[in-house]
């Protein structure tokens, strides 16, 4: 019972002055960016393919959809919650959209599915080719899941972990049941372009022939990039520059005090969970388009680890009250870079997941360390 004696166990430790710059670096908004750059530079000599244009473009294209989903998670964590159901929302919305807008259905694959003949047949979905209706349906489905999550957390005061765990299980099971775990192919070209279509491409080779081989042209600016960047800017503005955003932070910092101060706490919580599910839905658009299929298991497995890991590494606190969009942008960069380098090292997926798990643990420890540092400096 040493606690008996300590009013402040983390009292400031005025040891060596060398601690101060380290502390400042740890608390800086840019910490993870510097960490990523350092990591990149250190590994560059060992992994020559790391710096090639093809790999860099690949890195970016992996980052965009993850960023979109992690932005939603950032909001949920800022109110002190967690959203485990984002992956399930991705699977559900991917399936729903594909079932509605596919231009053809394969009876040998889908005829056993409960939606066969109802939503989709041999001539495609009921909204075959009407991309915008499909996207609207996805957003509605996603928002509904978020609404249920948020309502349960806000009004019944259930823990977010429990609520979204239940959503994760039921929603993903529902999505798998819809197609009996089959993928739905034949998505319209316009939809596929959202994930793959390029707007600006670059070519780094010599200009000695008029024909450039396709694989040497790299997509630099894609629809996915534009969607992700626009969403990040919009959500940054929402969190930092609006009354709603300040209330999100306040609810995470002290729910009770926020309620007494007149913050519409429940409304904020519901909206944040809806926002999180909507972000997952936009992520689902990008992932489904890249895959050129609707897949009920799209957000399963370790995807959740990637989202939560990237958000926490960025610096958003698991304890609530502290979150920034820019942090998550850097966190996603770091995480994508980490996955990429592990792949380049020819490690098996098992090894990769083990390393990722370790890195996320380190990030969570870092969060604890930051919180303590902040308090001790105060």
């Amino acid at each position, binding site marked *: 019972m040493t606690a*008996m004696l300590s009013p402040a166990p983390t009292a400031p430790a005025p040891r060596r002055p060398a601690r101060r710059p380290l502390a400042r670096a740890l608390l800086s908004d840019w910490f993870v960016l510097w960490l990523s750059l350092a990591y990149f530079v250190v590994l560059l000599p060992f992994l020559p393919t790391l710096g090639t244009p093809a790999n860099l473009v690949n890195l970016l294209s992996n980052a965009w959809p993850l960023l979109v989903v992690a932005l939603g998670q950032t909001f949920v964590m800022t109110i002190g919650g967690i959203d485990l159901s984002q992956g399930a929302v991705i699977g559900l919305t991917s399936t729903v959209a594909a079932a509605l807008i596919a231009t053809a259905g394969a009876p040998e694959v889908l005829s056993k599915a409960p939606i066969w003949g109802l939503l989709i047949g041999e001539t495609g979905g009921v909204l075959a080719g009407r991309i915008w209706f499909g996207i609207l349906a996805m957003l509605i489905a996603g928002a509904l899941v978020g609404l249920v999550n948020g309502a349960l957390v806000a009004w019944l005061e259930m823990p977010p972990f429990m609520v979204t765990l239940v959503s994760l299980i039921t929603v993903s099971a529902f999505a798998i049941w819809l197609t009996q775990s089959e993928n739905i192919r034949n998505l319209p070209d316009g939809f596929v372009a959202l994930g793959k279509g390029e707007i600006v491409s670059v070519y780094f080779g010599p200009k000695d022939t008029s024909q450039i081989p396709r694989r040497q042209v790299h997509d630099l600016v894609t629809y996915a990039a534009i969607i992700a960047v626009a969403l990040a800017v919009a959500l940054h503005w929402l969190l930092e520059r609006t009354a709603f955003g300040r209330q999100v932070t*306040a609810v995470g910092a002290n729910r009770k005090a926020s309620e007494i101060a007149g913050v519409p706490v429940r409304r904020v919580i519901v909206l944040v969970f809806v926002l999180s599910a909507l972000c997952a839905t936009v992520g689902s658009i990008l992932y489904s388009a890249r895959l050129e299929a609707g897949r009920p298991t799209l957000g399963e497995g370790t995807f959740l680890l990637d989202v939560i890991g990237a958000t926490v590494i960025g610096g958003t606190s698991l304890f609530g009250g502290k979150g920034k969009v820019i942090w998550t942008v850097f966190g996603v960069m770091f995480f994508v870079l980490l996955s990429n380098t592990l792949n380049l090292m020819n490690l098996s997926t098992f090894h990769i997941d083990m390393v990722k798990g370790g890195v996320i643990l380190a990030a969570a420890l870092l969060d604890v360390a930051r919180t303590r540092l902040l308090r001790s400096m105060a």
Partner: protein
Amino acid sequence: MTPLLRFEGLGKDWFGVPAVRDLSLDIPEGQVIGVIGENGAGKSTLMNMIGGIVPPTHGRMLWRGQPYAPQGAADAKAAGIAFIHQELNLFTNLSVAENLFIDGFPRRPGLLRGLIDRRAMRDRAARILARLALDIPPDRTLDSLSPGERQLVEIARALHRDAALIIFDEPTTSLTHRETERLFQAIEGLRAEGRTVIYISHILQDVRRLADRVAVLRDGRLVGEGTIAEFDIPRMIRTMIGRDLAAVYPPRTSVPREVPVLEVQGLSAPGVIENVSFTVREGEILGLFGLMGSGRSETARILMGLDPAERGEARLRGQPLTGGPRDRVRQGLAFVTENRREEGLMMDASIRDNLTLPAIERFRGGLGLDRDRIADVAQDLRETVRLKAQDLGRQPVRALSGGNQQKVVIGKWLPTEPRLFILDEPTRGVDVGARSEIYGIADRLAAEGAGLLVISSELDELMGLCDRIVVMSRGEVVATFDRRDFEERRIIAAAFREATSAGEAA
């Protein structure tokens, strides 16, 4: 005779800034020493040095004449020093007996050594409790005890460890009148047994009552020391703040108007309050006095919409108050709750974020929030409530002293232009200087026409500040006193009347 504990030129620098300097003092054995000083005077640093939490940078300590340099909390405990803090270090899910023996359960003999000897534990716990005249069964879990009883359990733990020096840090902040009395008896019992007590408190009357000697700290220095007979309360205050505080309570600068702001009519919530009625007028400071559990804080929570009322109504400027806190804030209520850490502040957020939260929706500009206006308003608020802070945008509220934190909680409501302020224990844990400033703020708010409902368990405070005092007892309003009729004895009698006539059922 060798003193129990002696400080010789003790000092502590934080990054070159002295928190305690050149402090020499003897703590004689078997006495109660009151240690007083404003927040930031160095009391906590001194206690942390005794407790081995922080090492001194200058000087040394002697324990029974031997050099004493604790490397950690365990060393202090081994030497025989126990701390009792305002936030207790007890396990609320465990029983009283388990709490007493948590660091060394009695074991069963022989082969069953791995098991706890529950009977022995209960018996020994019962003996220790009996010494404190604390008649609670050792099997009760802590969460079923009142704050005062928990405090006594903490003392029981120190007794069981046979501590020679017991240090109390603001122990009465969450206790009722009766519990405080019981605590004082326990402390006097400790002294009678020859134990030494260091008693830290902002409540100077309590120090007067308990202490044999007083040590006064200011800016890290020992500025006064002597027997209690030499230190009456005015001298304590003078020594603490280094100047004459003409009056802790500044004179009221305005008189209440006739227009009612808040009219409470027959407000009832079964088992909590019963048929409560009173009126607060514009420019009036109305005190709500009562023992803990009399329904005073509960009334405030119901007015704020945090708890439901079954019958009755409250009107603010003629409009019935309805809905939750959000609706009522919009109607013009402001609520400074009794515990600012849990319900008032975002401790790790900046001062500015805290100051602008309640009115944040009023700062909408063209595209998002108008951040220049937010900064201006925060700056103005700093002046208005005389906040001592460096950087409003970066400094977290946690870094402020208790008094300044309380000023933030009050200041944050001003931009919502409230018509009625509810201040629940506005000066709890606040030092004398800041306390006086808070009273000044209250007076100015009243002068500007707001109504104030001040709840306090310190009658002095209400008598110094209020125009009228409403006394509650067992959930009912039992008396109302106008300022000219203020008389301590009568007000306290009113607060006790119901409780005594109904016996000690509560």
